[in-house]
């Protein structure tokens, strides 16, 4: 099957005066598993529905395989979509649901039989062909929805929060299966989700959207390690943010005054932004916790703090530590025999300078 790319060029869409998408540019490679990540209302579903043909943009182009599909209605696009609620037709059997698209394409009976059978086998539901959708579990319904979509051999597969209606264990299983299926079919897939873990664990690349604007595009690890702004930093994983005043800039290091904490000496990264105030950001696991009077390793930048709350999560304990006027999340790895730091206890936090990213405010 030919792998097809999807390109959005300067796409703008508004409902009345509400701008939902503002100058969206995307270039999705053929055969890629691409995730659209964002909070609700960010425009990610609108963008997906736009590619499917259910919304129409006022400006820009949507190219599928180099062709502008904007003037085409949904039924002429050959873009498959799996809906959040699966949208299986309750008045048809599983077989009829899957055969629907082929019937619309006026395929002959023998072809329909072979293809529908193959699609159902592909999702492991060959034995369920004569059931009705309401006689299936959520996971099974999802697979029928998937089979119904891929049976028409679409150019592009769109998934609108396909896992959000499943329980947690099933969700993890299904996302691995989805990915395996996508790899096998080599189908360009665009996947909408608000769950960063889901996006990071499956996508080749992803785009983070907020308020109709694409904030950043890249591989999951890139977005996690090198977010371009505080929104991406906070949305992809957990991030601590400390605003600091620049006291001194040297060629190799930077002195920042953080309110209530004091001066922080940080090595200057190559792309340190200019400005009087900067946002210091670091992940919870980039911090060490130690008792207040412990010997301090000079490789870390140390800050005094007080434990405010703790959540034991198994692999690690997440502490909320008050540092000056700020509250930081700190992950402390857990091992057998390790005692928790008591709430209210004084601790020292050691920050690994290489893990810090600075943002302009």
């Amino acid at each position, binding site marked *: 099957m030919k792998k097809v790319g999807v390109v959005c060029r300067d796409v703008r869409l508004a409902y009345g005066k509400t701008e939902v998408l503002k100058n969206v540019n995307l270039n999705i490679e053929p055969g890629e598993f691409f995730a659209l990540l964002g909070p609700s209302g960010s425009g990610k579903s609108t963008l997906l529905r736009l590619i499917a043909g259910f919304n129409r943009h006022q400006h820009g182009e949507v190219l599928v395989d180099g062709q502008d599909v904007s003037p085409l209605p949904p039924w002429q696009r050959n873009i498959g979509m799996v809906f959040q609620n699966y949208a299986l037709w309750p*008045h048809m059997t599983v077989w009829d649901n899957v055969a629907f698209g082929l019937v619309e394409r006026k395929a002959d009976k023998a072809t329909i039989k072979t293809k529908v059978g193959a699609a159902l086998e592909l999702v492991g539901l060959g034995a369920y062909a004569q059931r009705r959708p309401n006689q299936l579990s959520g996971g099974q319904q999802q697979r029928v929805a998937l089979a119904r*979509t891929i049976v028409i051999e679409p150019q592009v597969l769109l998934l609108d929060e396909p896992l959000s209606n499943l329980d947690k264990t099933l969700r993890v299983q299904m996302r691995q299966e989805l990915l395996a299926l996508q790899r096998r079919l080599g189908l360009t897939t665009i996947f909408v989700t608000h769950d960063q873990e889901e996006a990071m664990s499956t996508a080749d690349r992803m785009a983070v959207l907020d308020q109709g604007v694409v904030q950043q595009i890249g591989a999951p690890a890139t977005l996690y390690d090198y977010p371009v702004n505080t929104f991406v930093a906070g949305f992809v994983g957990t991030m601590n943010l400390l605003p600091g005043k620049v006291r001194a800039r040297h060629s190799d290091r930077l002195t920042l005054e953080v309110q209530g904490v004091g001066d922080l000496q940080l090595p200057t990264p190559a792309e340190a932004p200019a400005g009087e105030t900067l946002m210091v950001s670091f992940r919870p696991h980039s911090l060490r916790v130690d008792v207040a009077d412990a010997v301090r390793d000079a490789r870390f930048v140390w800050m005094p703090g007080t434990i405010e709350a703790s959540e034991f999560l198994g692999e690690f304990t997440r502490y909320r530590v008050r540092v000056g006027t700020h509250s930081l999340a700190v992950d402390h790895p857990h091992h057998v025999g390790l005692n928790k730091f008591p709430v209210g206890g004084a601790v020292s936090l050691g920050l690994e300078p290489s893990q810090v990213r600075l943002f302009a405010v």
Partner: protein
Amino acid sequence: MSAPLSAASGPRGPGLATSGSGTRPGVWLAGAAVLAFLLLFFVLPVGRVFITAFLDGDGTFTFGHFSAFFSQGLMREAFYNSLYVAVMSAVFAALIAVPLAYFTVRFDFRGAILIQTLGVLPLIMPPFVGAVALQLIFGRSGSVNLLLQENFGFTLPIMEGLNGVIFVESIHYFPFILMNLTVALRNIDGAMEEAAMNLGCTGWRLFWRVIFPLAAPGFVAGASLVFVKVFDDLGTPLVMGQTNLLAPQAYLRITQVGLEDPLGYVISVIMIGFSIAAMALSARALKGRDYSTLQKGGGSIQRRQLSAGASVAAYAWIGFILLLTLSPHIGVLLLSFAKVWSFSPLPDAYTVEHYATVFQDSSGMIQNTLLYCGLAAGLDVVLGVTIAYLILRTQLPARQWLDWIATASLAVPGIVLAIGYLRLFKGMTIPGTDVLLTSTWVMIMLAYAVRRMPYALRSCVAALQQVHVSLEEAAESLGATKLRTIQRVVVPLMAGGILAGFVTSFITAAVELSATILLVSADSMAPMSYGIYLYMQSVAGRGPGAALGVLAIGVVAVGTWLSHVVVERTGQRFAVRPVDEDLPPLPTVAAQGDKS
């Protein structure tokens, strides 16, 4: 960590599903066709009635006809009588319905099912048929009064004069209050009541201060419906010989004085005015008062066990009401088999010859009913589906107006619509022939279709609302055009609602008399409802009339039962039932695992 939520959440209502693709020519065409129908057969005829009521002979605007109306003692009396009968019927219907509704919701006893059955029984019979039967049972020389006279030496004049009309109407229409109130009571969260009890409020005070006010919107909706129905009813007063009410007066004016008499139009306008006022009142009572406080996971008010004594009392009351409600049915059934029934509690001898007479003479009427009501109900669901689709799924400008106009026909009494038809289409002939348009059965069928359209429309709208937009989008993304999607997905999914709408329209049209009586121009085109009325005019015809009535009840009862069954079935078939089954791993995953 910060994750600022954007304020601009993308509107994704169902109506916007097609917003991008603009309004297609097919949509305009469908909208125009519906509008043309509504204008031609509803708005223009009714408008014509209004214009005639306010225009002088030379075409100038005048209130003269109205002052003429109120200067006639007879007319004033008819006006007050109509108001009195409608109000008193609503009051008596409430007296019957409120305790019944309360019992079903409050207490845990078997009578509840009985009451639910009670709720439908009266409606499956035209009220004017019941009137004849009630005359035989409760009339001056009816069964009850004969027995009372014989044993106790007194009689009850409940079928005399206007009281008789009130009695018949309240027995016939109390189910409207019962059904609305029961639903309203069921939707009250049990915590509402428990909170009141917790604060020390019990018994009657609890009912009057908390429960009834919460259910009041349902009650008002039901009561105003009773008021409107009674105010507009023509058949019952005519059959009972009470002509000094507005509807019979309008009928007599038009049939005896003529189509030119302005007073008939004045009465029509007054009747519409009261219908609209009653509906506006009920809409106002309901507005902003959606008291269905039932929370997700919360229970409705707690059911209690009745004590032995209370149980006996409740059963006695229900039994009494059941007997009252069933008495028209029993009466009609007895009458249809009675050889002679006069001045005796029960018929003196029985026969089946009335049925033979009916099948011999009136099979045409049965066919007419099936034809007119079938076509009218078919038209209704076609219009209902179209309007529902236009308002819920397209961006057609002013599409809500189609809904409003179609629903407004609820406020127009049958006799007014009929007068409008006679006036608007006066003298028009079917193109190419000399046959007058108003002399054909098509007019009757159209009147049925217009008057029953709101039922089919509501049913279709509810059915389409149940169909999630994504079910249609899925079809479109798989290559089905709009028309194919409607064909293969929308209509099949709406089937239950469409059928329910069809049956409701059909059975209510089958018992309609007030428009029929004016539009039937020859006995050969009479439907059953008119046939029953004709038979009932003479003593000799009462037997066959009752037999025809029994057949009509049978048709309506079977239809009601069918629609109930179909709605239940489709409901069950499409209901979401959680199925818990372990998922086998996908073959793809297994295959991949093996390779690596």
